[in-house]
């Protein structure tokens, strides 16, 4: 039994179909990336796992189906989510944003908070600042931090590098590796930046126009230039 199993998933926004017949498996302790161009359905895929969109098919976590569960129940099942647009609470301080993340994990506040502060010392320095006044990189840190405050076993990260400077992308990659290696989190990221995905993930799924095009280990896809060129124009 895999840790996360997505089986024949189709997702809809109203009547528009955003994903068609997607199947993905994730083993415990893995970093898996879903890559694809803008509009491929990457965010929809993560939203589906979180119970935020209407779906057909099945999504199982440790063998338990998540279909029909509310996002709040799915968070309690150990899934943390850092969405692409962050969805932070703009007029709350950094600290209060993190505290909202602790809504379902109140016993772990101290340990989670010190983990977040050790990963992102900047958040401790800026804990009183409103997130509406922060840079994109800082908001990304708050978004990660808030997800970690929910005590997740599985971390979903939507386009962690979008709009961020290369140096910050590098830091984000380091943090994700650390969360995976040291804290034992299973990680699923989505990316447009194929190189970032290849450098981080052990396995990669390629998504385009809501359909799964191909998948394989990072090594297999790295050597398959034609395939990557087809989707990313050789970047």
């Amino acid at each position, binding site marked *: 039994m895999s840790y996360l199993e997505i089986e024949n998933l189709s997702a809809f926004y109203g009547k528009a179909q955003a994903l068609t017949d997607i199947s993905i498996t994730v083993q415990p302790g893995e970093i898996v990336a879903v890559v694809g161009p803008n509009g491929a359905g990457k965010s929809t895929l993560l939203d589906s796992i*979180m119970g*935020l969109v209407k779906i057909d098919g099945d999504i199982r976590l440790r063998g338990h189906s998540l279909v029909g569960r*509310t*996002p*709040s129940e799915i*968070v*309690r099942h150990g899934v943390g*989510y850092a*969405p692409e647009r*962050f*969805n*932070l*609470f*703009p*007029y*709350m301080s950094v600290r*209060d944003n993190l*505290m*909202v*993340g*602790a*809504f*379902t*994990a*109140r016993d772990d506040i101290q340990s989670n908070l010190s983990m977040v502060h050790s990963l992102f010392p900047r958040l401790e320095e800026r804990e009183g600042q409103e997130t509406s006044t922060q840079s994109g990189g800082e908001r990304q840190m708050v978004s990660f931090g*808030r*997800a970690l*405050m*929910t005590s997740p076993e599985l971390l979903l990260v939507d386009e962690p590098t979008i709009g961020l400077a290369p140096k910050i992308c590098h830091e984000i990659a380091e943090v994700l590796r650390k969360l995976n290696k040291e804290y034992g989190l299973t990680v699923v990221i989505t990316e447009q930046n194929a190189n970032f995905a290849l450098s981080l993930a052990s396995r990669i799924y390629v998504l385009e126009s809501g359909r799964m095009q191909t998948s394989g280990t990072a090594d297999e896809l790295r050597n398959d230039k034609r395939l990557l060129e087809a989707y990313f124009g050789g970047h």
Partner: protein
Amino acid sequence: MLQILIQGLLLSGLYALIAMGFTLIFSIGRVLNLAYGAYLMVGGYMYFWVSQTLGMPKLLGVAVAAVLGVLMGFLKYRLIVKTLKGDHVAVEISTLILAVVIQAGIVLVFGDSSKILLPIVPGVINVAGASVTYNILIATLISWAILLGLFAFVRLTHTGRAMQAVSMDAKGAAISGIDPDRINLITWGISGALGAIGGVFFASYTQLSPSMWVAPLIISVAVVIVGGIGSILGTLVVAHIIGFLEVIVVATLAPELRGVFTMLLIIGVLVTRPQGLFGREEL
């Protein structure tokens, strides 16, 4: 001058309490609960029935009014707002109709003549040369205490922070493990209680009548529109603008114009600054 200052502070404190329950709902659901005035009316009448008709303790009257307010809030959310989901116009039309239905119910049970509510605390005190009834003084102090308590609740508790979170970003709240449905229900309950308690004080300041839901509703709508959003501090500030405006108009122009300038202010803000004075989505 001093008289105006004191009257203004007292009236504004009461208005802040009245408007708070309304702005709370606007803040969290971006919807105008046009039946809000009915909470005040039912609260006032319930207090009248318990403490004046039945002769029970006054505090019990306030408590019964508050509990009924909570129940009304719960029911309204479950039966109307949740069912109509995101359709704000439908919610607003239904709540307005509901207010008229409740008004008819009040006429049926209590008759359509207005009733005098005895002061909750009788007596008059002289404050810096101005005579002030204990009733309005106590009402204002209790308003402040309730608003302070609400402020602390929203800022310092997990549930309060969750209310702020839902008001600022519903998706962000959901992925933090918050059930927006439950937070909405709690907020509607708190709003009902605030309205009903506000209604007891409002009725003791004016009088009980089946049309008494209109004036507080206009005050509440004005606070939301002028303030721009339902934050607690914003509500407090705008309640003072409206309260002082009324007191100054009554003292210097004519008592008949009492509510007129509040309505003109609504239009003025809508035309010149539609996002309101503050225009921030916070609680």
